[in-house]
């Protein structure tokens, strides 16, 4: 659900950055010889003495909502709440595999009732205990409709959610607590879901499932100004639009504790300036690099082994909405368009190698991903594409709609050109001014042609790539796709307690989706970030975040 950071505020920044390219071309050419590839597996390290009480500064953007964990759905605020709170499970930076953090064990026999035990002795930053009640209270708060928490709907699988969050927004909720949450003892809780859900333990690592201390419920205004969490870092101070300062919480004992003292989240209005600061050593970490640094892979020359790579949970696709008559049941047309897009060439040239061609509906690097699910239909083949188009009987003009800022326009224009050349039909890119304007068209089901349909998963599970997008009535099923067979398989997979078996059934669903092709997979983004030379080690996660536990600060000599 994270708002792809490039969408919201970068048009101005891009304007500025383009002109910069020419000015830096010369030094780049000189420095090219020094270029080396960044460390693999998300991390990068160098030798040197470590400073256990050092300061790390990372790139940030101004949070768009209050710093409550269940109200933070975008990257700017997520960065802060992620460091302030620890949830029951964590995700491994490399592949998103879950491991227990606050939880000692999570058990279920039927994927419906989960028995969760907490590790003893955990504290909030104000010294109070992290107990089962603090989780239950926080989840109830998130779900209760009048609290208006943006991510409240993530509590939907829990039994009794409908009572606290009625489907009709004007109705008063009957209760303020979900019946599915039960505190057994201070370190044990029992969660009953309204239907079996095998990925619930994975969801538990997502932000809205953070616990909240008593202080939160006592005075929310005060809490807003100075959040108290249970995570590896505690809140120190905040200057709006400039700086958020966090500090190590010394009573934190869990696996992902940090090895430095202070974290400065510096707010930048321009990614380009932040990049300059990073190269100059004034900023220590960026999870994404500005477009100008990616041109000609300039960042490799600038940063050498300080570059960080990671797989991301992102899937870029072009959707063909079912509410448009020409697209409705025309699988041949979908296949023809897909085979007319030269993914290989566009990712290499227009996208400057920061994306790779996609061959399925699930992003590579997570459990359940298989190579080549889309098969020949996602491989460029203009001859076959032309033949398929003929069979489809489609005539007329194709359009691709998207917001045109944040670098979204160029690759889709290239895709359109590729389609035009391969199929010989007119294809035009139709741009909306910004992400908000584009979402308004999509949410209102007012698309008039194909559209950009990019998805970044909320948590690392194959389920999150399928249920929200392709299930009838899914929260992001913008194309109105509906296939009862897919729905049935997804439901069956949700109810399968054994995770490996569940994945197999999700894969069957993906195979069915591949036959219908509700959207055309185009490319997957590669995570490219960087650290400064002040750090000995840093790591980028698959959620495009800093893995703070892996950061090591270089001692100043």
């Amino acid at each position, binding site marked *: 659900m994270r708002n792809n950071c490039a969408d919201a505020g970068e048009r101005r920044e891009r304007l500025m950055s383009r*002109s910069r390219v020419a000015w830096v071309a010369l030094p780049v050419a000189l420095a090219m010889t020094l270029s080396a590839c960044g460390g693999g597996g998300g991390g990068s390290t160098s030798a040197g003495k470590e400073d256990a009480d050092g300061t790390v500064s990372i790139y940030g953007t101004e949070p768009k909502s209050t710093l409550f964990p269940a109200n933070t759905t975008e990257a700017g605020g997520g960065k802060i709440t992620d460091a302030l709170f620890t949830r029951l499970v964590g995700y491994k930076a490399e592949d998103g595999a879950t491991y227990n953090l606050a939880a000692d064990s999570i058990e279920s026999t039927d994927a419906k009732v989960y028995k969760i035990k907490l590790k003893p002795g955990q504290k909030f930053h104000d010294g109070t205990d992290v107990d089962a009640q603090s989780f239950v209270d926080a989840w109830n708060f998130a779900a209760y409709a009048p609290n208006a928490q943006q991510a409240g709907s993530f509590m939907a699988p829990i039994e009794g959610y409908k009572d606290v969050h009625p489907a009709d927004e004007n109705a008063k909720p009957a209760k303020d607590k979900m019946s599915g949450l039960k505190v057994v003892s201070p370190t044990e809780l029992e969660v009953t879901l309204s239907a079996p859900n095998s990925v619930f333990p994975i969801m538990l690592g997502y932000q809205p499932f953070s616990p909240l201390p008593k202080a939160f419920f006592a005075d929310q205004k005060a809490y807003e100004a100075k959040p108290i969490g249970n995570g590896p870092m505690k809140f120190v101070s905040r200057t709006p639009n400039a700086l958020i300062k966090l500090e190590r919480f010394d009573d934190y004992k869990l696996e992902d504790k940090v090895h430095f003292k202070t974290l400065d989240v510096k707010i930048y*209005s321009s990614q380009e300036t932040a990049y300059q600061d990073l*190269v100059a050593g004034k900023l220590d970490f960026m999870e994404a690099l500005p477009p100008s640094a990616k041109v000609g892979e300039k960042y490799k020359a600038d940063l050498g082994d300080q570059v960080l790579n990671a797989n991301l949970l992102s899937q870029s696709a072009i959707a063909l909405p079912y509410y448009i008559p020409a697209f409705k049941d025309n699988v041949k047309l979908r296949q023809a368009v897909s085979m007319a897009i030269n993914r290989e060439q566009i990712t290499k040239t227009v996208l400057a190698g920061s994306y790779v061609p996609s061959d399925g509906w699930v992003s590579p690097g997570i459990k359940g991903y298989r190579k080549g699910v889309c098969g020949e239909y996602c491989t460029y083949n203009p001859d076959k594409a032309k033949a398929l188009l003929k069979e489809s009987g489609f005539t007329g003009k194709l359009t691709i709609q998207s917001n045109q800022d944040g670098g979204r326009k160029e690759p889709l224009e290239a895709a359109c050109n590729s389609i035009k050349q391969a199929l010989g039909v007119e294809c035009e890119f139709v741009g909306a001014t910004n992400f908000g304007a584009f979402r308004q068209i999509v949410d209102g089901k007012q698309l008039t042609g194909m559209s950009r349909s990019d998805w970044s998963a909320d948590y690392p599970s194959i389920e999150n790539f399928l249920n929200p997008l392709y299930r009838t009535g899914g929260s992001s099923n913008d194309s109105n796709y509906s296939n009862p067979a897919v729905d049935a398989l997804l439901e069956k997979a949700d109810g399968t307690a054994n995770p490996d078996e569940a994945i197999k059934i999700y894969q069957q669903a993906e195979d069915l989706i591949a036959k219908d092709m509700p959207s055309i997979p185009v490319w997957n983004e590669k995570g490219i970030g960087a650290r400064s030379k002040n750090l000995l080690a840093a790591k980028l996660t698959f959620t495009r975040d800093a893995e703070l536990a892996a950061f090591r600060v270089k001692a100043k000599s």
Partner: protein
Amino acid sequence: MGRYVLRRLLQLIPVFLGTTFLIYALVWAIPQDPFSGKCGQRPCDPSYVAEMSQKLNLNDPLLIQYFKYLGNLLTGDFGTTFNGVSVGEQISTSWPITFKLGIIAVIIEAVIGIIAGVLTGLRKQGFLDNLVLVSTLFLISLPVFVTGFVLRLYLGPQGFDIMDTSVSTDPSIGELILPGFVLGSLSMAYVARLTRTSIVENRRADFVRTAIAKGQPQTRVVGIHLLRNSLIPVITFLGTDLGSLMGGAIVTEGVFNINGIGGLIFRGIQEKEGVLVTGIVTLLVLVYLLASLLVDLLYAVLDPRIRYE
């Protein structure tokens, strides 16, 4: 004089009301749902939309919304943005920085611009005149962000290393000199040309000829008689420029990552933070009005023929 100032100050009230209403209406009239795109790739939860609309009075008719806003404003409450941070706090952290930056830019453009203008105006068609003409032409044709990027590249760590790539969270005056120069560079060129033209014109004026005929020294003729009279258009330009430098420093602030009003207003417009935009623009309107009042009063100082009664 006192009555004139009072009358001007009273005029501020209707202007203030009119502009704030216009801005408020315009911001909320942008044909886009304030909640679209706020919650990422899925529509916002209806309960969230309902709750926030209630908080921001979005369900009321525009006029009532505006008066509610105005009522809060008069009690010193600028409202809060979507992220729960009060607009007053955001303005109070950004305002001093922008103010410093604006003043530095105006001082730089005034000092360099007027000196260059006077020198070239007195020695028309000399080498210096041509040099200033060409260099101001160059500055005028360069967009501000080009100036900013070039200076940062060559003076920053990758060049001569005499400045940082961005300023700190609470920048000192020293740190702001270069951004101030970038910000003021375009207007500096205009000031130089304006001063030059004005000086050239007034050199042939009767009162200058009289002053020379009276045998007054050159410095007095230029400094008192010529310059004072020539500065009226320049002061007018500088006065309005102060306002536009403060609100329009978006690009410069972005290049040097200065947490100022320009960046704040840009973000406010992009994210449809109506209260933020209205709050800042209200403040900018006041700055414009006060600056133009100051300019009008300065006319009287510069030219004794102008009287305010």
